[in-house]
């Protein structure tokens, strides 16, 4: 019986189907979750997918954070459930204070869609154990507000604790502090990632299959547990 990984659909979520496809390809059972339901349907992990939840007209993720499902996700995350926020999901995790800092408008002020090289900095989180530290992966980045910012102390803490999960290499696409592409909470179960690993699961539709490791990581962690 494969592990159940929930994928939340907010109004305005766009990459929810893609995240479900990636979970299935990695051997998991994707479970759709609805923003208006407070229950998590017995899932073992949750993915908050990319998109423009509620239109993102206020601040990205600022409304989604108050949805019924996010109450349940926050509780579960604090209790140790693996949660991955991709792009808009990362923004929601920051708005929910499950991760520190914020994602702001790209330095170039344009939406950027490109195949982005990342360096994995921490292979001990629930979502990155399939990688090796220092490994480079090629994953699409597509966002208008992907520039990670935080105060200097927070960035130093993230660096010191090894909580930066991935950094941009071959050029910083959006002005992110420290080239940060993704971070984790102190426990390593909650990860926010600006690029889209669910769009790099095969060479037919993506630039590589490098992204699959994020999903296989969490599934093998669950099997091990």
């Amino acid at each position, binding site marked *: 019986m494969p592990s159940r990984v929930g994928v939340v659909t907010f*109004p*305005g979520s*766009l*990459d929810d*189907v*893609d995240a479900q*496809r990636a979970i299935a390809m990695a051997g998991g059972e994707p479970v759709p979750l609805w923003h*208006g339901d407070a229950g998590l349907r017995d899932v073992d992990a949750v993915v908050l997918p*990319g*998109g*423009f939840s*509620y*239109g*993102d*007209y206020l601040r990205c993720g600022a409304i989604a954070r108050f949805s019924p499902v996010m109450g349940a996700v926050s509780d579960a995350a604090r209790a140790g459930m693996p949660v991955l926020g991709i792009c808009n999901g990362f923004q929601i995790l920051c708005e929910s204070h499950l991760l520190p800092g914020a994602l702001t408008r790209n330095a170039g002020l*344009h*939406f*950027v*869609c*490109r195949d982005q090289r990342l360096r994995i900095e921490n292979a001990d989180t629930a979502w990155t154990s399939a990688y090796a530290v220092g490994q480079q992966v090629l994953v*699409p980045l*597509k966002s*208008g507000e992907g520039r990670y910012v935080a105060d200097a102390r927070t960035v130093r803490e993230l660096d010191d604790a090894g909580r930066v999960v991935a950094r941009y290499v071959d050029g910083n696409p959006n002005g992110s502090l420290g080239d940060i592409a993704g971070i984790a909470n102190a426990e390593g179960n909650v990860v926010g990632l600006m690029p*889209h690993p*669910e*769009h790099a*699961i095969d060479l*037919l*539709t*993506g630039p590589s299959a490098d992204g699959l490791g994020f999903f296989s990581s969490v599934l093998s962690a669950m099997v091990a547990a």
Partner: protein
Amino acid sequence: MIDQPFAALGLKEEEYLRIHTVLGRRPTATELAMYAVMWSEHCSYKSSRVHLRRLAATARAGAGAPLLAGMGDNAGVVDVGGGLAVTFKVESHNHPSFVEPYQGAATGVGGIVRDILAMGARPVAVMDSLRFGPADAPDTARVLPGVVGGVAGYGNCLGLPNVGGEVGFDPSYAGNPLVNALCLGVLRHEQLQRAAATGEGNAVVLLGARTGRDGIGGVSVLASATFADEGAGGSSAGRAQLPSVQVGDPFTEKVLVECCLELFARDLVVGVQDLGGAGLTCALSETSAAGGVGMRVALERVPLRETSMAPQEVLVSESQERMLAVVRPAAVTEVLDLCGRWGVPATVVGEVTATERLVVTWHGRTVCDVPPASLADEGPVYERPLCRPADQDQLVADEPTAQRLLRPRTGAELRATLLRMIASPELCARSWITDQYDRYVQGNTVLAQPEDAGVVRLDEDSGLGVALALDGNGRFARLDPYAGTQLALAEAWRNVAVTGARPLAVTDCLNFGSPEDPAVMWQFAEAVRGLAEGCAALELPVTGGNVSFYNSTGATAINPTPVVGVLGVLDDVTRRTPMGFATEGEALLLLGSTREEFGGSAWAHVEHGHLGGRPPRVELGAERRLAEVLIAGSRDGVLSAAHDLSEGGLAQALVESCLRGGWGSRITLPAGVDPFVALFAESAARVAVAVAPAVVSRFTELCGQHGVPVSPLGVVGGDDLDVEGLFRVPLSELRTAYEGTFPRLFG
């Protein structure tokens, strides 16, 4: 009798009098506003209709794809097998995009997406075809970034991958840019929806956004009239038209799309129509007329943004993100509940009647009582006078001969020409634009720009997918609108075929000047004739499209710009052929024949600012044979790469394929041919391909079987483009020249 403001609403006096004849009385102010929008050029096709019959005949001929819906529907629907159908259409949003570039372009995308949704299809991809004034003109710096931002902002937020398109520059578009947006949708056959109201007593339900004062007269005073004078949208004339531009809210559209698809899946609607040009008036009258019924509408039930709106404003507002559904009374509660789940406002505004009258009341007072068909189908039809433009002969006679235009001859001259050409706005990398578009969302994009065609997977299990290309060349069409339109068709056909897809159907967006100018009307008639005869020769049905007239500034019309979209099918998208030279040691071959053809070429335009002569010869038979080779080569797995030769000729194609694949190539031009002609001529029906050395003879044989000329071109490898005996350019230098232009111009 003539005391009503018909002219200000965009109606001619004879049209106003015709309304009296239809009604047998003076129209109410509300009715007058409704006729003005429905009888506008944009909605009624009154100048184009007599010509468009030629296109409808291409579908009736029964050739090519089986159609489930065609011209006259919101969009054509093509059976692609496996129980699936696709629907696709391209539409213009030119004038709004000049007045307010971001919102104009954004709502252009929103409008075509609702057309596709109205057929019952899930929208799965978009494309855009854009034209601007000179790239370095100050107003282009206002219009282009706004348009690109609007296409990106709306499409990205809707979750639709942008998989291709094109952009061009010419002084003729300086006061009148073109923004043509295409949407592709997919549906199971049984999900097909009709835009017809039926069933007396059925409820008429308005879904989506509240109605406001945006887009009043969008189809009439904005889309169906020329801009009065030159000047930016920032001019006083432009500002005055701002209220005619709609304002988009892609989030509302996203939930509207999901909500409607669920309504369709649960079989809860009898008929559905999007609200676009002419707003509620169009949706009410067209669905009633199509169903042969009437409607009674209590207009005050329409949710408004501004309570002070007059009934005629409510009826003609083009506020975005709205749909009209016809629902059986027993299903109304379930429909409203479902809309509530998605947060989509839904209101029963009226009911279907058996009267064949569209009756609209406003707080109990009847403001409209007309036969719906008189609005929707029985508008004026004009046989406009045609006249070959006075300067046409002179233009054609001005051939870009070696005597007329200085040509590069030495290797150094050819090298410098190549670098200038690939850095020109006409031919340079489009990534500054396309990197603002999400091409990955939905996870089914197999090929996207800069590939020749976008390829989208439809079925994950079978691998069934479609290829789409959108092409147009206003310079060719200016020189010869008949041939120019066929060249656009041929290029889109070829761009689909190079991926290995079999071309199946056509959509078109015909962008022209004022139909009241006989010279423009001649261009239009020639273009339609060219498209109809071209489609007949290729056995492709035209499934639908759009005509955009009045693309003029003062008396100056744009270059006639027919934009043609071709859709093809790939049984297995894993077989698609990409454009990049990605494998060292592979053999390069040139398919097709090269002639000394420079009329309307990118070279003449970029290097000399010249437009004259004849466009390249059209050879649709050769295009068909070429496609057969490309399809067979893809199916048999013998083609590693294929790239269409068009603007900029062989030189441009080689640069693009080398940079795309990451390898240089060593090219040997054919002996006895002027290297300048070999590199830069724009003869049609040509493709450069890469094949593994082991299959060269097999592939050459395949070409022979189909009668396609094939000649050796060189070999893939190294770090530079080496044209033997002439010049050599490192890939890094090519990349710098090719990619630097747009970032430099637009930041």
